[in-house]
């Protein structure tokens, strides 16, 4: 092998990336020290955790009525807010797509979508609880805004990636703008839109169990009250029920996805 071939390197070292990685490791060690995370603190914490877990067993399902009522309310919040979010996201996504909408409209719509997504849904739920009072309505409103923002953003991005050749062919037939949408655009993005919607429904099932903690309806309120009263066996029952609900939802949405292939 000649000397010049040895000097050619197929994989030159990236010193910048190595230095960054080393810096991150050093900072993580420093941060651990700052936060006073020590072995003594850890062993104390794990001891407490053992006692806490022991009090959770066995789960207490005696207040099943309260439990089911809360779960059903959470389920309803999730379904209604997902449906409303999907409904609003469809036009918003179309208006935000830069390859279809005129730029002033798409910029304005993108701004609105970013606004919907800027605050965490729990903060939005607190705002709605303050504005329209305790209960499921505040939870539905908060999760609708979150779903709308999430689906509209991903939907707009999916539309921007479609093949314009197919759209061009439909335009060339003399189709109106509406007909171009339903023949040239939606067939290309429909399955992804349904995918985003199912994912958001999944997320909303989880999210709807949380908004109750701030008073926006659902099982979360019951869970928070049980924590405050140290009813850890009831807490365990609620948590197991939520996990079961999410598992069922996962199975159902996986089945729907298969059917839509």
């Amino acid at each position, binding site marked *: 092998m000649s000397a010049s071939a040895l000097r050619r390197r197929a994989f030159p070292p990236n010193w910048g990336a190595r230095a960054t990685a080393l810096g991150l490791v050093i900072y993580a060690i420093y941060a651990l020290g700052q936060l006073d995370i020590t072995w003594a603190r850890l062993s104390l914490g794990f001891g407490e955790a053992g006692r806490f877990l022991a009090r959770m067993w066995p789960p207490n399902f005696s207040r099943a009525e309260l439990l089911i009522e809360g779960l059903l309310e959470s389920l309803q919040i999730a379904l209604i807010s997902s449906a409303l979010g999907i409904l609003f996201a469809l036009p918003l996504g179309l208006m935000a797509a830069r390859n279809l909408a005129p730029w002033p409209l798409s910029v304005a719509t993108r701004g609105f979508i970013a606004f919907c997504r800027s605050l965490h849904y729990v903060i939005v739920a607190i705002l709605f609880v303050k504005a329209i009072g305790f209960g499921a309505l505040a939870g539905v409103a908060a999760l609708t805004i979150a779903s709308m923002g999430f689906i509209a953003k991903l939907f707009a991005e999916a539309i921007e990636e479609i093949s314009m050749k197919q759209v*061009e*062919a439909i335009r060339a*037939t003399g189709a109106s703008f509406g*007909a171009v949408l*339903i023949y040239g655009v939606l*067939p290309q993005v429909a399955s992804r839109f349904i995918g985003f919607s199912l994912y958001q429904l999944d997320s909303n099932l989880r999210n709807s169990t949380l908004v109750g903690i701030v008073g926006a309806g659902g099982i979360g309120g019951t869970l928070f009250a049980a924590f405050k009263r140290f009813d850890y066996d009831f807490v365990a029952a609620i948590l197991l029920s939520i996990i079961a609900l999410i598992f069922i939802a996962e199975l159902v949405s996986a089945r729907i996805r298969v059917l839509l292939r």
Partner: protein
Amino acid sequence: MQTGAMQGLVIKGLVKEYVPGKPVLRGINLAIAPQGITAVIGPSGTGKSTLLRCINRLVEPTAGEILLNGHDLVPLRGRGLRMARRRIGMVFQEYNLVERLTVMENVLSGRLGYVSFWQAWMRRYPEADIARAFSLLDAVGLPEQATRRADALSGGQRQRVGIARALMQQPELLLADEPTSSLDPRTAVEIMELMTGLSTSANVPLVVNIHNVDLARRFAQRIIGMAGGEIVFDGPPEALQPGHLRQIYGGEDWL
């Protein structure tokens, strides 16, 4: 000559500049009779595709007139433009079928300029349209494929659907932009035979951009050679000499 009396396609002084000051088409003048097959040949990037797309206004002309059966297409907007487009069928190089729709939906999309939004959405096409779509599928040799999705077809089959879609418009003019460039040589000949046969029997003039000079000679009654955004040859296939090809494509080693 009176404008109203001129049949076929008449192009006058057509200029297209994508970048101001750099014309792709430099004042094209062309008259195409309301029947017959015209092949446009020329090197890549010489404006053949732009010329075709200016006719159905997928590309906006910078200057000039395009008259189809006496009516200027260039100033049309909105509804007027859609009414003009539905009279012009187009076949594309990469077929441009809507992949996730069925073959039948793709063929019927040729009627989108004629049916209402509601009819299109609900697939409530007039019986006559559906019957015509089935007979076109028979004519292009896909009698059993109506309910298959377009992305399940081979290239040659897709182009057959593309031809059926264009003819579904009952066009007064058929444009084909490199319809055989994505196909193998044998399928290319089959597609050219099908397209020229169907447009001739429907009495629709066909303008086809084509790379393959042999296919152009074989199927066209008139050949237009373009180079540098201008027409440098216009005549029957027999008149096309190696000298012309040198002028169109440059160089001579390949001849």
